């Protein structure tokens, strides 16, 4: 098992990290809008926290793509 891991190129790590971020994004968008917006004083578009998660994930994907 260890030998297999040692032989994997480093880009495998990047792929796994990017998959984890993508999974979190999927989880965020699977949550209902009403659950996300609960408690907000209004329903302005920017209060949709799924959009925050999307922006955050895109930034992370770019970081891990570059490095």
């Amino acid at each position, binding site marked *: 098992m260890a030998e297999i891991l040692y032989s994997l190129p480093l880009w495998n790590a990047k792929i796994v990290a990017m998959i984890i971020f993508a999974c979190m994004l999927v989880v965020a968008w699977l949550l209902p809008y009403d659950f996300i917006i609960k*408690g*907000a004083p209004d329903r302005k578009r920017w209060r949709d926290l799924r959009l925050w998660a999307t922006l955050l994930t895109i930034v992370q994907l770019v970081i891990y793509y570059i490095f």
Partner: protein
Amino acid sequence: MWEFAPTSVHWLDIVLIISYLAGITIFGYYYKSHVKTAKDYFLANRSLPWWVIGLSIIGTNIGSNDYIGASGNAYSIGIAQANFEWIGAIPAMILSALVFIPFFWRAGVYSIPEYLGLRYNNAVRFIAACVMSMFAVVIVGVFLWATAIMLQTYLGWPIWFSILVTATVVGFYTISGGLGAVAITDTVQTFIMFFTAIIVAYIGIQKIGGFDMFIKTLENNYPDHLHAFLPANHPTFPWPGVILGLGIVLSPAYWCANQAILQRTFAARTEWDGKASMMFAACLKTFVPFLIVMPGLLALTLAGKSITHQDQALPWVIKHILPAGISGLMFVAFIAALQSSIDSTMNSTSVMIVRDIIGVVKKNSLSDATQLRLGKLFTFLILIIGIAFAPITAYFQGIYVYVQYALSLFQGPIFALMIFGILDKRITPHAGIFSLISGLAVAAVLGWLQFNMLYIAFLSFVYSAIVLYIVSQFTKRKPDAELKNVVYSNVVEID
């Protein structure tokens, strides 16, 4: 810890440090008038907006040790150190914001053990509070000692003087103003940390000859320092360990179940503010490597491999790059990092001692006034014990690592109780108590067998999860009526 001759301190640096200490004391003390009840003291009367909580979370998260340790690691291994801020934090923060925080907020709890009490029973609440409080008190001592060592090294201050000054200031506003003062001062302290980091990065990059030259130097001379991951056979940070151990267990355990981090989200003025605060903190977290990784890379590009010990990287930057005034600002950022971590730990630990330990023993019969009085008393006592424990730290080489190791002993079992307790209403109270106690025992045995802390956290988490499900098959679960807004399948509208 490291060898470094004290720098000659410019008067401007001293003025900056004294101004900061005086300003933050007055600023924090101002909040005293807002504290009338235990809810004011422990939860700032549930009045905090998302951006204050978000900044406070980051302030609490970044300790003074991170400056030295992370910049030293960055000098040694490069940008891979930033994984602790990225893959080792952000997915867990999103999970915490969108899945965990809504339940904590709706349940109206003051602490993580209190939530465990609602979900399981008071025995689980009591044990979790005892274990978490014990380690929190030790951590206060370690933080105080580590910062005193830094200030002695840089400024030549006697250790006892550094401990007394930093502890007096932080104790003054934390005891008088409670969580409100803690959150507001954390916000200012986080601003100071980011502001300083931007200035240090700017000055350092200008010294190198611009951003292009900075990147070119790294690319040409230290290409390995620009890789986010290190090989699987790396002795310290192998990529499978970083992703599986840090990313999958330790990081969610920290961001979804750490009392000091989460207490301020319980104090959010609305459920949305609680969720948004953690998302905002995650956005800020993306840039935290600028604070604590960048100085290491600047030292590498300017000094090459001439620095004998990696922990000297930041001291080298302060001595050789920063002009008078800016180095004072850097010291202020150090002290701010220390205070924003200690104040949160003190306040959140006093909540657990008063409500989850004494409260459970007294069968929740403490009046509000008693809770407030005990809250202030225990905040003071935690600080005193921390001060008393601080010098003991000197007798243990690398005690910070031991504390991290000790934390890994209970993070796995508690996180298993949290996540499966929230997601599955079939998990029973008896399963919770059995899983917690035996999970802690398993973690202790693994520690005794000298397992790597990442593996201890992962294995004790898996063990506790299995035990939760097995014991739940044979024991009685809580009625649905008692699990309203405590588990995912029993969410009800609360408008």
